[in-house]
Structure formats: structure tokens, C-alpha cells
């Protein structure tokens, strides 16, 4: 149960990034898992040089933000008007490139980023002992989600983004430079995944293909929660986390089967997702 919360929080953050990109830009970003992986590796490099977890955290997020911005400027923006298949192919291709570049640079041998020393041990929660760092993960992720929420719902940029999700043509007509906003959204969405990547690094050890399974899970989360819906991503993340961990306790082999079964159920009962709005693309 508790385990699910940790996994769910992480999934929520990654999926939030995925969903705002899709919601605003209409681009299905299959390189999102690679962003998650890049965040982890950027953090690892920063940690290796500074021995500071905080620096690693910031470096991971900022690096992926920059990668996201560069990706949008150099490649993705030419694909907004192209069919969805092209977008899928180009982001999928980019994902493969990123993974192989990292494999070439760092090798397949897994890398470890240790948690900050004060969060290393285990904490008694009364009913069970739990690694302190994993508790910290929940805290960090809640803070990050809160920041993302404030950005989306309490700032002018956020307003434009949300308006863009509803009707980007209209926003454009109102004289707002949507393309600049698009670039920012892509960067921020990627950063959410990168940040999750470095936060998650001490929990799992880093390998170049760490993002692959996460990508699939976060797509499921987005579908469950409702495509393009930020609260939906959070809710979907928590639900997916719980499904995986509760099923794992009973019979691990069925964890992912259950996840997809629930997704199918949601699609049948509420095709737009739990918090999705009907008719939105």
C-alpha cells in the first residue's frame, strides 16, 4: 500500500510532464522515457563531480530542461503540422539515439547515485520499517507537483498553456506567441521526467534502458487519468502505483496484467479517462 504511494508519486510526476506536452502540443512524446533516463545520468555526473545530492538534483532537472528546449527548437517544432505517425516515429527515433549515446558514453554497467547521507537508513513507521529515502521521494515529488500546479494554475504562462490545451488556434488568434509557449511547455514537460529520473536514481541503479518500462507505465497513467489532464495524471499515477504494488504483494507476475486490465476497464467505462474531458483531442 505504502510502497504504491512512492511508485505512484513518481509515475504522477512523469505522467504530468507527458500529459502537458501532449495536451498542449498534441505531440505524443515517445522520448519521454529517455528524458527520465537522461535526468538520472546528468544527476549521476553532477554527483560524481560534486558529491552533493542537491547539486545532482538540480543538474538533472536543468540538463533535461535544456535538452527538451533544444529538442523542441531543432526537431519537434517542425512536426507540429505533420501527422501523428511522423511525430511518433521521430520521438521514438530520438529515444533510441539518446539511449545508445548514453550506452556508448557510460557503458551498460549500472551506475549508482547514493541518497544524501542523512536519508540513508530506514525509518520505523510504527507498522513497518521503510527506507528513509523512499519517504523523502514522496515529499520531493509532492513539492515538485505542487510547483508544477502553481505554474499551470497561478501564473500567466500557465493560463496560456491551459488555454492552449483547450484551443491553441484561438490562443494564437488572440495575438499570443504560442510557439514560444510551446517551447517552454516541451522543456518543462521534459524536465518533469528528468527530475523524476534523478529523484529515482538512488532507488534503482541507473542503466541506459531504465526509461523503457517507465515510458509504458506513464502512458497507461495518462490514459487512465485522462489525456491532457494534469489532475488526471496525478490521480492516474497514484492509482497505477497502488495497482502495481498491491498486485505484486499477492502475485507479482500479474502486476502489469492488472495494470492493463484496469486501463482497459477505464477505456470501456470512461473512454476519455477518469478526469479527462470528452471530445478533447
Amino acid at each position, binding site marked *: 500500500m505504502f510502497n504504491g504511494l512512492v511508485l505512484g508519486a513518481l509515475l504522477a510526476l512523469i505522467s504530468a510532464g507527458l500529459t502537458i506536452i501532449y495536451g498542449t502540443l498534441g505531440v505524443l512524446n515517445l522520448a519521454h522515457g529517455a528524458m527520465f533516463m537522461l535526468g538520472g545520468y546528468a544527476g549521476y555526473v553532477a554527483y560524481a563531480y560534486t558529491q552533493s545530492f542537491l547539486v545532482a538534483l538540480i543538474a538533472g532537472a536543468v540538463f533535461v530542461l535544456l535538452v527538451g528546449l533544444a529538442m523542441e527548437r531543432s526537431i519537434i517544432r517542425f512536426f507540429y503540422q505533420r501527422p501523428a505517425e511522423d511525430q511518433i516515429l521521430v520521438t521514438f527515433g530520438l529515444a533510441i539515439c539518446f539511449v545508445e549515446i548514453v550506452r556508448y558514453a557510460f557503458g551498460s554497467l549500472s551506475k549508482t547515485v547514493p541518497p544524501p547521507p542523512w536519508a540513508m537508513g530506514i525509518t520505523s513507521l510504527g507498522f513497518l520499517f521503510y*527506507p528513509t529515502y523512499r519517504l523523502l521521494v514522496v515529499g520531493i515529488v509532492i513539492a515538485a507537483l505542487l510547483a508544477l500546479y502553481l505554474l499551470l494554475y497561478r501564473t500567466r504562462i500557465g493560463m496560456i498553456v491551459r488555454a492552449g490545451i483547450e484551443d491553441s488556434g484561438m490562443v494564437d488568434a488572440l495575438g499570443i506567441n504560442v510557439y514560444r509557449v510551446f517551447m517552454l511547455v516541451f522543456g518543462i514537460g521534459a524536465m518533469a521526467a528528468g527530475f523524476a529520473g534523478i529523484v529515482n536514481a538512488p532507488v534503482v541503479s541507473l542503466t541506459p534502458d531504465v526509461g523503457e518500462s517507465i515510458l509504458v507505465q506513464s502512458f497507461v497513467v495518462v490514459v487512465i487519468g485522462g489525456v491532457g489532464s494534469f489532475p488526471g495524471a496525478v490521480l492516474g499515477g497514484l492509482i497505477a502505483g497502488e495497482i502495481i504494488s498491491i498486485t505484486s504483494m499477492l502475485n507479482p507476475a500479474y502486476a502489469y496484467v492488472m495494470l492493463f486490465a484496469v486501463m482497459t476497464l477505464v477505456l470501456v467505462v470512461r473512454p476519455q479517462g477518469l478526469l479527462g474531458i470528452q471530445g478533447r483531442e
Partner: protein
Amino acid sequence: MVHHPFRQRLSRRQLLGAATLTAAGGWLCEGAHPLTSIARAADHPALGTYPAGSTGSSVFIGITVPRTGTYAVQGEDELKGYQLAVEHINTGHDLIKKISPKTSKGILGKELKFGVADSEAKPNTAVQEQSRFISENKAVLITGSTSSAVAVALNKLAQREKVLYVAGISGSNDTTGKDCVRYGFRQCFYGQTAAAAIGPVIVKSLGKNKKAAYLTPDYTYGHTVQHSMEDYLNKNAGWTTVTNQVAPLGAPDYSSYLLNVANSGAEVLLNVNWGHDAVLSIQQAKQFGILDKMQLVVPYQTPFLAREVGSGLLAGVYAATDFWWTLEDKYPLAKTFVEAFDKKYGYKPEWGANNAYMEFALWADAVENAGSFYPPDVIKSYEAGRKLQSTVGEVYFRPEDHQLVRPVIIVRGKKPGDMKNKEDFYDVVEIIPGEGLMQKPDAFGCSLGSYT
């Protein structure tokens, strides 16, 4: 063009008839003329990729190792062993000549060439790639696996295609047990020998009547190794299994399994996971405080394990393995091998690389002794039970199940402070001769199948 099924069928039938006649004619001829029959004695009918694969100046080997995914690191190490062996065989290196005395350069004077494909540790992918090597490149030997699921699948492919297969890393009892084949050979240790070797050592060190928890990967390797360990410990030392946590290969997170282990009241954790799964599950066991409460045992060691888990997590941990580089102090061939490998690749070889190297070296020996690439001759050469030289002393193949009889090495992780250099991760505790460790050849249901 109009299609004439009748005419086509007729012509095919004619062809068949003609072929039968020719074959019968050939037979009669051989019977009639003793001279031709002698001349053809070394000549064999076509079988598998014979003779097409060995008529030129070179022969081809198909190699499939995982280069991505959970077992990627181990696959790369294995591949380096293969590459070094090919280089040594083609140039007639001294080390190869010590293992295969009849080798000069190449095998039967033919240069070795090879192709490599990424198996992703998936049986389907491996079979697909090897089928391509067999049909397009006329491979005379196929190899590679770091997963027993792949080894078993390639065993079956080898038997069907009549092309020799030497298993890479494969720890399942089934590979030379119920899924053994005439065309498959295995060198490395496996569940049964691992358990029989490490069992007495851990009972001596940890005591009798212990409560054990297992972490087991969910496929043939995991199940048979877990079963062999449990069998030994429960029967011989009164241990009990309090939980066996079975996880899929490549599980992204072990927290739910580890929570179950933490709450099981076990005193010893036997981690059968392999590759990155082993690394991740051990690191996470540490995070969950399990390693402070339970003694960890690794029944089937993963190459690079100590390097990857880091920070002395394996200090005092017993593991069974195939090879560790400090054996160079005991075996001269190991010394030559470790030096040659280190010089070429810049690190000390792990057991996957050693095993890969020895596979090709012993294959060279088998073919040179057979004097031909004709598969049944090579198989019979393997089955002759010759004493063979290796990097772990004298070994031989058991003809009944094609398993190499070889020692199992028990190592114990060193504390970081006790390491003499950055690759000095283990003490070699014991080298246990192979004969006493093995089951009866038919105990796991091995029936080899036909030569042709």
C-alpha cells in the same frame, strides 16, 4: 501465364524419382567397388550446414549475446571472450595450443569468422538470429546465451538444424537435463553443482536449522537453481524455506518482494537473481535494511556483481562461480588467459569471458581430433571423454549428457579495506572438484537424441 498445377506436380514427381534412382545408384556403386568405398569413407552425406559451411577457406560461427537489457553487461563480457578466442585460434596463440594441442592456425587450416547479433536475452530473438546465421552464413557452430531460456531454445534449434551449439552462460539444470540434445554442449556450472558446492560451505559458516528466504527469477534458470539449493539445505542441514519471492526477469523494482522478505523472519537471504536483477535487488535489500538483519548468499554468481553493487555490500558474502581471476595463482593457463585478456580489454575477465574463451578452445580441440567438420564426428570427438586442459585444470565432457565435469569455485566478498587492487573483490575460499557435485547423468531426464 496460366498456372498448371498438374504439370508442376508431375515434374516434381519425376524429379523425386530421378533423385531416388541416383541415390540408389550411388549406393550400388559403392558396394560394387571397394576402392571407391574407401575413397569415400571420409566423405559424408550433407547434414545441417555440412559440407557447405566448411568447403571454403574459412568457417563461420554465429554468436548471439544480449547487448541490451538486464543481462547486457554479462553479454558484452562473454563476447570479448569469444573474440579473444577467435583471434588466438586464427593466429595459433600458445594458450590455444596448450588447450588444443593439434591446433596450428585456424581450425583444420580454416580461418574462423563470426557474426554477432543482440539476443536481448530473449529466446525468440536468439533463435531468429541464429537461424539467419545458419541459413545465410552456413554457420558450423552457434553459441552465446546468458539466459537458460535462450540456451534451451538454441539447444532445440541446434538439434533440428543439425548444427553444433555450445551454450554460453546457462545455469539451469534443464540445459543438460531434461532439455539436453545431442548437438548441444555446456561447460559452465549449473544449479545442481552450484548447490552441492556452496551448500556445505554455507552450512559450515552459518549453521544448521536456519530459516531461508529466496529471491528467484521466474524462468528455468531461477526455478532449478532455487530448487537445487532448497533441496540440499533442507535435506542435509534442516533448513526451512520461509518465503520464495519469484520475480519476472528484468523487474524494475524489488521493493514489494523485499518487503515480503523483510517480514518473513528469515535469517538467510539466498538471492538467485542474475545480471542487473541481482545488482538491483541487492542494492535495494540494503536500502530496506535487510542485509543488516540477514546473511546474504549468492548461489550463482553474476559477472561484475561486486563492481556494480559497490560499497562493500558483498563483504563476507559467499558465492559460487565458474572462474575468478585470482585463480591465476594456481593455474598457469588461467594466468596466461587473464594477462592476454587484460592486455586487450583493460580489465580482468569475469567468468562469462573465461567460459566463452574455453568454449571455442575446446571446440577447436574437438574438431581437430575429429579431423572433420562433419557434425556427428565432432560430437563423437566431444563424447570420447578425453582429459582436456583448461583455465581451471583438467576437465572432461560427460558423454551421457554433454556436461563438462569441472570444478566449482567458492568465493567470499572482501571488505573494501582488504582489497589489494581495485579489481580484488573476492577471496577464493574453495575449489571443489566437479565429479562429486554432479547428479547421475539421467537424473534430470536427459535423453540426447540422434546424431543425424
